[in-house]
């Protein structure tokens, strides 16, 4: 390989690196000038392209993020000037004279990434659109890959993203971090989007799907970024803890053949100790603030599972108390169902059966396979195999994930023929 080739590779690597690290920062800063996310995205893409030539010619800048931001902003201003008559009608997010063009270093560039995240997760956008926009604009993921992760066609995903961007511009969804009064609710929407990203990647069939593994990585990076930007929000810490503690067990969720393993059957020695440690510290931090919400509480439960020597030796009493608290801040039937499992471990399966009966009467979880699956498991433990079989069949008819269907079919076979 010649010296020139080496240099070219170094430049490519620097650009790729800057894409991974600085995309959100560059786009967020450019959006201020462009007044329109679509135009901003175009200009940022152009800036990354321009970097390939310019950095090969002039050397890699000391602060690639600042170089990219200045270049993208300049392109945006050029477009605005060229289309002045048309753009005069377009809403500007900030007045152009607020923009200083020749900032020598990125310390002087205001960090607008929070504005970008809150805009992508604005409640006036559908959840699906929030998720797609966050991946696209904050993480810089291509539409094709987003489509693959959410199992829709690329044109469908492209239309979804375009529609959302048009709504932001036409309805004037502001490019702003919400004020203190709105912040808790708005932050919750952001955390929900990130959590949804994580679970989309996490519940994917193991191995085959690399795109979905990337989505897990993006969710973790987004949460770390959010924590750096909002260090005083315990729920951000809670979410990062929850993701780390869940992800620490990712490798053991399925066996070598891709079949789901129950928590009690997983190889605890293969869990990621470093991730568990970090998650546990974050939970402790969040609890010290005295302002714990649903993510910190879920993370605390996950931490107790992750640090227990075995399923039986788990501190179920504390887990049950945490579920009581969780149900208070988040009165969801899914939480009540998970709490019922904890009840069964503390007070026995018969007590839990009453909770399940209440949930069946409630009706909101009809259609959710996990309700009859838990029901079936309790009946099995109470040595009522015929009733358990009925409940396993009900769960099977509702589950759509292949790994879960296989798991339920195996349990059904067990209660039908205990000798096997």
């Amino acid at each position, binding site marked *: 390989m010649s010296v020139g080739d080496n240099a070219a590779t170094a430049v490519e690597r620097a650009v790729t690196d800057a894409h991974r690290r600085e995309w959100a920062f560059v786009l967020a800063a450019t959006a201020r000038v462009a007044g329109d996310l679509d135009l901003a995205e175009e200009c940022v893409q152009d800036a990354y392209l321009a970097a390939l030539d310019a950095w090969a010619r002039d050397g890699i800048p000391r602060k690639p993020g600042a170089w990219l931001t200045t270049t993208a902003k300049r392109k945006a201003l050029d477009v605005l000037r060229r289309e002045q*008559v*048309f753009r*005069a*009608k377009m*809403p500007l997010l900030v007045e152009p004279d607020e923009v200083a063009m020749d900032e020598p270093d990125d310390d002087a560039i205001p960090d607008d990434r929070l504005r970008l995240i809150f805009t992508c997760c*604005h409640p*006036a956008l559908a959840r699906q659109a929030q998720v797609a926009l966050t991946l696209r604009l904050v993480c810089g993921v291509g539409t094709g890959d987003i489509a693959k992760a959410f199992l829709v066609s690329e044109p469908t995903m492209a239309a979804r993203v375009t529609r959302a961007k048009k709504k932001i511009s*036409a*309805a*004037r*969804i*502001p490019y*702003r971090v*919400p004020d203190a009064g*709105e912040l808790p609710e708005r932050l919750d929407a952001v955390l929900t989007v990130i959590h949804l990203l994580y679970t989309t990647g996490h519940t994917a069939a193991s191995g085959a799907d690399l795109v979905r593994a990337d989505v897990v990585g993006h969710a973790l990076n987004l949460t770390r970024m959010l924590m750096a930007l909002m260090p005083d929000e315990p729920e951000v810490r809670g979410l990062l803890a929850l993701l780390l503690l869940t992800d620490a067990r990712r490798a053991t969720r399925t066996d070598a053949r891709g079949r789901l393993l129950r928590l009690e059957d997983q190889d605890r020695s293969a869990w990621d100790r470093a991730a568990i440690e970090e998650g546990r510290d974050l939970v402790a931090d969040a609890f010290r603030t005295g302002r714990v919400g649903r993510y910190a509480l879920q993370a605390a439960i996950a931490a107790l599972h992750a640090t227990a020597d075995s399923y039986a030796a788990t501190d179920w009493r504390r887990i049950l108390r945490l579920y009581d608290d969780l149900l208070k801040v988040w009165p969801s039937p899914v939480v009540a169902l998970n709490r019922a499992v904890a009840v069964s471990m503390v007070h026995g399966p018969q007590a839990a059966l009453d909770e399940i009966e209440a949930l069946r009467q409630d009706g909101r979880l009809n259609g959710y396979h996990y309700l009859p699956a838990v029901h079936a498991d309790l009946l099995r433990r109470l040595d009522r195999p015929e009733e358990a079989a009925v409940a396993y069949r009900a769960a099977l008819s509702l589950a759509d994930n292949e790994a879960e269907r296989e798991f339920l079919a195996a349990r059904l076979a067990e209660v039908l023929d205990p000798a096997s």
Partner: protein
Amino acid sequence: MPQYAVLVYQAAPGDPMQISPEYEAALERYPAQVEELGGRGVAGYALQPSTTATSVRGDLVTDGPFIEAKEVVAGFFVIEAPDLDVALKIAKLNPVHLDGGGVEVRPLFTPPAE
């Protein structure tokens, strides 16, 4: 400032003579609240009940609203607001919720200049 239409929906037929005294009293206070939030009312109308509506599709003339639904447009108004967040705050304060109704916020279209 951008303008938004706010469409007010109520259970059919949406009769303005049948609104609750609470709703009526709250409506008196509403314009001042809109200003406090940083918006401005441009125009507003209440409609006769949807039983008085006539719909026209080409040559076909039918009695009743254009789309048969449990809820109907009972009125509409236009506001100016600096952005959607302010428009939504104004919409949330609309007292129609006292009578079980709700509103839809739609930005007004302005054609791009040539």
